[in-house]
């Protein structure tokens, strides 16, 4: 392993100081002069025609500056994917879910804005409601969208290889099902935004977003403002996890209010609105039929899935593909068939959430593998090791495993957790289960058709020398991307970490598709590496010329210049630096010339020095329909082992420990990688055991708060052992690839499999609440 000065360390985050002192500024901490406050009118009904909207009383309320409806917003269609632009800013002729946005108000304070919203009168004509995702496609069901007959907004039919051949060659075939519920990302910072529109028609939105770039494009398109007159800035963001990766109605409405009033408008979601508006995890219904040879070799997978995604498509068109494409690995599978349906119902819309459509699908498949293992009398890990792909192999759906440390991850968790011994024990109620998973390290293609670079970086040397600033449109949302950019830049330039500043999250800086599909380390990291190398070369060119040596003999390390590995003849250069610093005390006096001096001299010679970098993946994947979804320049993979205790009388499951290993290619920052693993496991544990959005028969969310929508507390999380595996990804900067989403893949199935080990229960519905476990136990008793 190369001797890195900064990379692969446990360097503290560059923004941690601001966060622990309360200095870090989030959207709601920002105030502008003459700022107005926005509030939104939501539909109380799940499905109804809008007959009339009367805003006259609301407009007359003192302190109200503007009320807007579809009259002002117009009828431009927008959404996430151009293939499915199915939303307007405000409902025009009908509402499609409880919470659907009808109007917005800007007023001098929040109290007035909220009061005005209550004064808007809307006349509805009710329509029959469709709530059951499994029945939404049935004949005779009311059609919610004019564009989607049978309430199906996307349909996928894939067939790779030949499953009939696979079926014929299988010794054992079984079918299993797993369904889940709609879930929420439950980040701690609710969506928050401030919109400003200046005298020249330039719109600026400051928003708690993960994807300033996509938000910028949607604002421009839906509000009909030229793209170059729209700027989106993200300050510190309190978590994203997917729902913040696309533009929202609230952002559009807030901008519209700013345009109409000419004043800054702030809008902050209450927690209930986070549940109503976040496009979070779909509800999945998976049915998988898998065939194996009696030695455990996988022969085929026949997979059917229905995704209930609520009232609009959002990311759903990608979700329905992800639900199948990432089953092509990490095991060798030649024959895979998939029929997937993304349906529309009268519920809040769903989009992308950590791991996207692959999470529940992975859970179903890994759950099935354990049942196969039991039938074949094989150790579940042995079964997996038998089928695991190797680096360089390509899946049946043309995903290239350019690096795949899956075997290493499995062996690491098996050995660290004491798997063999724990499986032999039979303590009442205790169980241990394993699982694998993997995810893209950045989507291979942007959401809209374009040949754009996925990210660009500009790294500028401070004109006085000594420090550099990395300009990036990328989105630090807590995952540590700013620190990653600083570390890569510092390593390449050979300077201390605190000599690198990062300015990010602003569309005016550079292009970056945003923090989604776990792309930032590989993609933006690559661009940053290129920019740093470019800048370094420009600085060293000047020094090489001045010293009359070859540029290849020069390098920086720890902020010092090395000439052929030594000090070199730097007297002249130092004198030049000192000449323009008369009167300064504490000038550099190290034996080596410092980066400070060298870079300043470079400026004096060339003027402002800038390095640029860019990244775009090569064309990836096959040429079949939907082939782009699931492609990536690399795939991060993960294995986890969960140890549980089941109380058979109450059904309560306690997870006592999770041992996880994740192949991130190369850990830019070891602490950060572990943190992402542990955070992923906590979200997976919550989704496995306690998270579900509950609806009543009117389509209203019953538990739109953090007391009744349960995410794990510190008492619910067990000890988490995080092991880093490094397979050295050729397409990643220094071999690095993702960890942010791959590490959630094994968690739910590891817990399901541990429960299976403890109780022999074959579950088919998530979350595994105590009551659900009890009903499985009772069914088991009745069957025996």
């Amino acid at each position: 392993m190369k001797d890195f000065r900064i990379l692969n360390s446990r360097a503290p985050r560059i923004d941690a100081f601001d966060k622990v002192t309360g200095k870090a500024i989030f959207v709601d901490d920002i105030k502008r002069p003459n700022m107005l406050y926005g509030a939104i009118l939501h539909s109380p009904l799940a499905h109804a025609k809008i007959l009339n909207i009367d805003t006259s009383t609301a407009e007359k309320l003192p302190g109200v500056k503007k009320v807007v409806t579809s009259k002002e917003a117009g009828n431009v269609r927008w959404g996430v994917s151009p293939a499915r632009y199915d939303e307007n800013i405000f409902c025009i002729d009908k509402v499609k879910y409880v919470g659907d946005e009808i109007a917005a108000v800007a007023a001098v304070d929040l109290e007035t804005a909220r009061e005005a919203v209550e004064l808007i009168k809307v006349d509805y004509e009710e329509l029959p409601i469709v709530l059951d995702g499994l029945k939404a496609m049935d004949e005779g069901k009311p059609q919610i969208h004019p564009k989607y007959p049978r309430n199906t907004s996307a349909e996928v039919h894939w067939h790779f290889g030949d499953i009939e051949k696979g079926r014929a060659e299988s010794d054992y075939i079984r079918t299993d099902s797993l369904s889940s519920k709609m879930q929420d990302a439950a980040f701690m910072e609710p969506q928050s935004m401030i919109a400003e529109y200046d005298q020249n028609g330039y719109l600026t939105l400051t928003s708690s977003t993960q994807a300033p770039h996509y938000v910028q494009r949607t604002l421009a398109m839906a509000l009909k403002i030229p793209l170059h007159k729209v700027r989106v800035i993200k300050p510190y963001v309190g978590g994203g996890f997917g729902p913040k990766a696309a533009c929202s109605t609230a952002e559009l409405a807030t901008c519209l209010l700013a345009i109409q009033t000419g004043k800054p408008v702030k809008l902050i979601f209450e927690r209930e609105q986070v549940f109503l508006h976040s496009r979070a995890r779909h509800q999945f219904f998976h049915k998988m039929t898998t065939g194996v040879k009696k030695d455990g070799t996988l022969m085929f997978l026949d997979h059917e899935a229905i995704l209930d995604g609520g009232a609009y498509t959002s990311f759903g068109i990608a979700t329905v593909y992800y639900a199948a494409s990432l089953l092509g690995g990490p095991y060798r599978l030649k024959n895979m068939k998939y029929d997937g349906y993304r349906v529309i119902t009268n519920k809040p819309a769903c989009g992308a959430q950590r791991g996207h459509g692959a999470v529940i699908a992975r859970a179903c498949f890994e759950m099935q593998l354990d049942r196969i293992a039991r039938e074949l009398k094989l150790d579940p890990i042995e079964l997996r090791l038998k089928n695991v792909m190797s680096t360089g192999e390509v899946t049946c759906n043309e995903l290239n495993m350019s690096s795949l440390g899956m075997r290493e991850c499995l062996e690491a968790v098996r050995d660290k957790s004491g798997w063999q011994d724990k499986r032999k024990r039979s303590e009442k109620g205790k169980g241990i289960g394993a699982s694998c998973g993997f995810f893209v390290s950045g989507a291979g293609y942007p959401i809209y058709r374009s040949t754009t670079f996925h990210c660009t970086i500009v790294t500028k040397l401070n004109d006085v020398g000594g420090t550099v600033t990395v300009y990036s449109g990328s989105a630090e949302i807590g995952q540590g991307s700013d620190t990653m950019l600083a570390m890569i830049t510092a390593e390449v330039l050979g300077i201390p970490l605190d000599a690198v500043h990062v300015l990010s999250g602003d569309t005016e800086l550079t292009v970056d598709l945003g923090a989604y599909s776990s792309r930032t380390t590989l993609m933006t990291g690559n661009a940053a590496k290129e920019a740093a190398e470019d800048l370094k070369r420009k600085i060293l060119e000047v020094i090489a010329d001045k010293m009359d040596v070859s540029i290849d003999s020069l390098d920086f390390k720890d902020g010092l210049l090395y000439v052929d590995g030594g000090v070199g003849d730097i007297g002249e250069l130092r004198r030049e630096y000192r000449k323009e610093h008369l009167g300064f005390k504490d000038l550099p006096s190290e034996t080596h010339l410092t980066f400070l001096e060298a870079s300043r001299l470079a400026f004096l010679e060339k003027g402002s020095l800038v390095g640029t970098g860019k990244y775009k993946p090569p064309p990836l994947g096959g040429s079949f329909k939907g082939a782009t979804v699931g492609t990536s320049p690399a795939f991060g993979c993960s294995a986890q082992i969960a140890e549980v205790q089941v109380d058979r009388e109450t059904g309560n499951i306690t997870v006592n420990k999770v041992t996880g290993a994740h192949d991130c290619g190369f850990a830019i920052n070891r602490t950060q990688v572990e943190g992402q693993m542990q955070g992923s496991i906590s979200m997976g544990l919550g989704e496995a055991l306690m998270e579900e959005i509950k609806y009543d028969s009117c389509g209203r969310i019953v538990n739109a708060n953090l007391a009744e929508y349960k995410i794990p507390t510190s008492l619910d999380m067990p000890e988490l052992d995080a092991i880093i595996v490094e397979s050295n990804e050729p397409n990643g900067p220094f071999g690095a690839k993702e960890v942010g989403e791959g590490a959630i893949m094994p968690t739910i199935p590891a817990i399901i499999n541990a429960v299976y080990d403890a109780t022999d229960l074959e579950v088919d519905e998530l979350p595994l609440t105590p009551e659900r476990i009890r009903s499985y136990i009772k069914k088991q008793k009745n069957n025996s």
Partner: protein
Amino acid sequence: MKKHITLNVNGKDHELLVEDNRLLVDVIREDLHLTGTKKGCGIGDCGVCTVLMDGVPTFSCLVLAIQASGSEIVTIEGISDGNDLHPLQQAFIDHGAVQCGFCTSGMILSSLALLNKNPSPTEKDIRKALSGNLCRCTGYQKIVDAVLAAAEIMRAEG
């Protein structure tokens, strides 16, 4: 209808004129411009608005400003001295206990109250003390590590 109150925040008295229905969290953030205390749910479920009120971790989103008159309030801004951080803050940085940072202020203050009461907490004690402060990013492991480390340092410093 406004009332005159005196809020003692981070050792300093502030004379304020506030409506009866103003919440402590809003007065701290808007009137005193101390934005380190965050708002996450408004109804006492998440803990990001935690402040210390007479040493007791309290969600400022469910306390009226007038109820806090006469109490000593400590926010995240009040536990460090310039660039000299409290051992808890330093430990959070050193142990990777911070990701998005939104829960951090509340976590640190709840931890501080625990360590003031119990200088040698077990991991279970820490998890229980922090069970009202939700975090979605870290999975809590490194937060617990940081509090254990800070406790050790604080015991050594006496």
